[in-house]
């Protein structure tokens, strides 16, 4: 057959028409979409019986109740426990992503000892026996050299059976150097000690307050127990409660508040006293409280009236005097006003002056131990841990006589319990080796303590560091030995307090799933270790294992806790004023100056008064960036905005006017330099910030953990120095002098 042009075209056209009309292309397209989607690596989650298990989240001090959904024995989702007194069904980003931590890549899968240099990530898996013998050997060695006091422990918390076991071990071993990580708890405990004369934690009756005055506290950034604060914030919107946020940056809290009053950072104490001035002058204070329950009020009043007039306060704070007057009147005029302080999430303690001034403001309006006010929640009421005293041998006795390395409780800092900032500083400034063995539990000081550079130096001076972390955090990374704890969903642990909660509450963290790796409960490690050491140390603890210890300690609360996941003291009433104060005069003590012989209230500056640092750097907190001892899991880092993190670059907020001055535009790369160091960052122009301020997010710049968080952005703690509060020794730095260099 001859193929001519005509038949060729007919064939082509006919073929095309035929194919199109046939089902073939459609079938092929359909099949293709099916084939390309049928990859064997697309997981098919196994089905099974659904159940829920209640527990308590321990990822932060917030103490939320969690209900874990299980498919057979496999946890698949974490939700908030409905009806829980703290979070009633709500949960934060971290709590919701807990399973990514449980199954995540940053878990430490078994005991490991360092083989390369510190931080080189060169590890050797060892057995638990070997690991515990290693520590026991070190401990024996120190003890026989008469250096038991050089053992130290840094812990995330000082309450609950596990921290108590560590404390007890140190006691029996012969060291007083147990240190808790810093937070506003330090400052509030100090204020209650000084003004109320009690050993108590501050609880806030936020649900019942109708006027919340927040001195830079990030009530929507994670202050206190985050979910509880969110829910309280929602209830104020419904009930008409007012929130006034004093803040130098338009934080989420400021944006959601009824009024945002920008303030020159660091001057909160001045404003608080300025408000007190107006309240006293206009006689708006609570006469009943001041007449019957205050001591040395007249002296305090004189200082406030002489030195803190709205005019002089305006000069320092940058807040107009008419606003100060109006705010004071609104605050005093509210039915149940409440003033709170502690910047951002409250990760750092603050200046004692500021905390006392704010507490005095509450006292002035009678909002102490009343509905909607601040309550002293007696620690004894929560204290179910009634273990017999440790029988100390001679070594332990002599260890107990020594002063703490951080100087807390000594002459200079009589009322302070822990000073991790001084701990680091004293290690660095001493010629001796003050700490020869360090235990780190439930904390990541290498990353979270300000002034990373100094922390690093101090760590280098400590010859042996043991981390009990479940995750490969920065501290674990730079330790010599890791004794990984079970992850929080794999272990029992009591959570004896919820930060800022107004009633005694105990949460129980329960094992929802079998341990996934070769980990061991830190409580068990301590108990076994003590057994190994024998003598008085072993005698200090007679429990078989941690679970038995916990059950025995909790006694009749065990069953309630195991079932509900929490126990709340239902008999606890609003403490009231009568018999509430245990000071020598049995009144609320305003006598500040006598105690510290300080020139009245002091405004704390920041490091770096050199004119080459014309700006001030302040760190800021966000719910979407965990900056505690656990870093963001993948879901959480996913929620971070691209004006905070883009690729590996971190953004700092500056005012567009500041940007203009430096010739910067949105996204410009700069070097952010402070007396403590420098970091490469990019700028985000933000109208919600004072000129000459630079705000950097906390929670980025991890070097530990997995690829989903590691190496992203920079750790602002590298740039922030510490600034010691002269009254307490606490770190009261709220920022640091800084400069921006265009690159």
């Amino acid at each position, binding site marked *: 057959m001859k193929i001519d042009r005509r038949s060729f075209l007919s064939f082509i056209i006919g073929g095309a028409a035929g194919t199109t009309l046939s089902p073939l292309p459609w079938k092929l397209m359909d099949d293709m979409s099916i084939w390309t989607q049928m990859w064997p690596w*697309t997981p098919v989650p196994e089905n099974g019986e659904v159940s829920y298990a209640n527990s308590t989240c321990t990822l932060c001090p917030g103490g939320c109740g969690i209900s874990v959904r299980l498919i057979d024995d496999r946890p698949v*989702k974490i*939700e908030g426990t409905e009806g829980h007194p703290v979070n009633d069904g709500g949960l934060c980003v971290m709590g919701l992503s807990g399973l990514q931590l449980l*199954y995540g890549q940053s878990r430490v899968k078994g005991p490991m000892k360092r083989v390369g240099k510190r931080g080189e990530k060169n590890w050797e898996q060892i057995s638990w026996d070997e690991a515990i013998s290693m520590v026991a050997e070190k401990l024996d060695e120190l003890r026989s050299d008469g250096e038991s006091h050089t053992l130290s422990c840094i812990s995330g918390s000082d309450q609950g059976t596990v921290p108590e076991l560590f404390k007890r071990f140190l006691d029996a071993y012969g060291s007083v150097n147990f240190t808790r990580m810093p937070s506003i708890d330090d400052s509030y405990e100090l204020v209650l000690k000084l003004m109320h004369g009690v050993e108590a934690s501050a609880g806030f009756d936020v649900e019942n307050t109708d006027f919340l005055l927040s001195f830079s506290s990030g009530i929507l950034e994670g202050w206190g127990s985050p979910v509880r604060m969110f829910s309280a914030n929602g209830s104020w919107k419904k009930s008409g409660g007012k929130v006034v946020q004093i803040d130098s940056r338009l934080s989420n809290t400021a944006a959601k508040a009824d009024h945002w009053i920008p303030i020159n950072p660091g001057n909160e104490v001045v404003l608080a006293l300025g408000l007190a001035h107006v309240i006293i002058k206009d006689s708006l204070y609570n006469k009943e409280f001041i007449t019957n329950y205050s001591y040395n009020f007249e002296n305090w009043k004189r200082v406030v009236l002489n030195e803190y007039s709205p005019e002089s306060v305006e000069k320092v704070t940058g807040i107009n005097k008419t606003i100060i007057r109006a705010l004071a009147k609104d605050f005093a005029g509210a039915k149940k006003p409440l003033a709170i302080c502690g910047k951002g999430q409250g990760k750092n303690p603050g200046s004692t002056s500021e905390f006392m001034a704010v507490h005095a403001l509450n006292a002035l309006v009678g909002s102490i131990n009343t509905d909607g006010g601040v309550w002293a929640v007696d620690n004894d009421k929560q204290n179910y841990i009634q273990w017999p005293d440790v029988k100390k041998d001679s070594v332990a006795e002599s260890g107990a006589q020594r002063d703490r390395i951080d100087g807390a409780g000594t002459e200079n800092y009589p009322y302070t319990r822990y000073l991790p900032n001084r701990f680091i500083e004293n290690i660095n400034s001493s010629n001796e080796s003050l700490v020869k063995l360090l235990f780190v539990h439930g904390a990541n000081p290498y990353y979270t303590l300000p002034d990373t550079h100094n922390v690093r130096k101090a760590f280098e001076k400590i010859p042996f560091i043991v981390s009990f972390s479940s995750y490969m955090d920065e501290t674990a990374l730079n330790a010599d030995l890791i004794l990984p704890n079970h992850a929080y969903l794999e272990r029992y642990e009591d959570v004896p307090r919820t930060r800022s909660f107004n009633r005694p509450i105990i949460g129980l963290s329960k094992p929802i799933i079998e341990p996934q790796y070769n980990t061991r409960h830190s409580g068990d490690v301590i108990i076994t270790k003590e057994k190994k050491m024998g003598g008085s140390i072993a005698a200090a603890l007679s429990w078989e294992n941690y679970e038995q210890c916990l059950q025995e300690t909790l006694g009749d609360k065990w069953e309630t806790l195991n079932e509900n996941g929490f126990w709340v003291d239902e008999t606890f009433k609003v403490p009231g004023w009568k018999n509430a104060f245990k000071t020598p005069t049995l009144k609320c003590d305003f006598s500040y100056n006598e105690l510290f012989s300080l020139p009245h209230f002091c405004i704390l500056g920041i490091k770096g008064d050199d004119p080459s640092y014309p700006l001030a750097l302040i760190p800021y907190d966000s*719910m*979407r960036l965990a900056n505690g001892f656990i870093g963001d899991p993948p879901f959480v880092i*996913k929620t971070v905005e691209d004006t905070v993190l883009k690729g590996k670059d971190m953004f700092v907020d500056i005012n567009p006017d500041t940007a203009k001055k430096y010739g910067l535009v949105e996204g410009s790369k700069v070097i952010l330099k402070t007396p403590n160091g420098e970091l490469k960052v990019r700028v985000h122009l*933000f109208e*919600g910030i004072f*000129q000459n301020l630079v705000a950097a997010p906390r929670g980025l710049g991890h070097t530990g953990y997995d690829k989903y968080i590691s190496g992203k952005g920079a750790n602002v703690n590298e740039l922030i120095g510490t600034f010691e509060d002269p009254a307490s020794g606490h770190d009261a730095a709220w920022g640091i002098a800084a400069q921006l260099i265009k690159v």
Partner: protein
Amino acid sequence: MGKHEKPKKYGMVINLDMCTGCGACMVACMAENNVPFKEDESDKLLSITWLRVYKLSNGKKFPDADICYLPRPCQHCGGKGDHGHSPCVSVCPATATDYSHETGIVSQIYTRCFGCRYCMAACPYHARYFNWWDPVWPKGMEKYLSPNVSPRMRGVVEKCSFCFHRYQLAMNKAYLEGRRELEEDEYQTACTQACPANAITFGDLSNPKHKVYELKKDPNAFRLLERLGTNPKVYYVSSREWVRRAGDNYLQHEETVKLN
């Protein structure tokens, strides 16, 4: 639709005064719906977030600057007269996305989708996301995947389903108990449940017994891009005028109108 059931119009009212921008809704959604994650999620065009919280700003200078967060799930548009002509449903050549007259929910059927992304172009809310890559769960992490929602594969579009599997589970339970109707709290989305600020309320917009029925009539309520006629089922409430204007319902010279 079963002949015994009344048609429902599930929707949300989100109170933007109460929303704190914490992101819990986003994460609750990801955890509930097996949403994947990558090493770098900072390119937001490629980051799959069925529910995304946007940060709005009023554009004013310090100290008059203000910000507000706006959570944006799929708006489950009913189209004019709720006939189901939502922008995405109208254009899907594969019937991979459909409007349910039973619930008012816009579905997404992954196995039907062949990835033409026509719906993404049509959706005025950027509520749809495309799987450019196969999702990868690092070893061990696949253990937390929920069997209620099938993990997606490369080449398909995905979006918020108002946690439709929860509706199915609740209905199954109701049928077993001999009921045909659900109580309001029997079917709630994961984001609503997790919201620590109680800013999200979810329910049947046409059922006077449900909270959303009244809430949507708030004088400060608005919907996004209402003038497009998409008839979305997500209402927002804000006491701040600039936020209501940010719903893009007004020309510059027009005044903000309060509902009702």
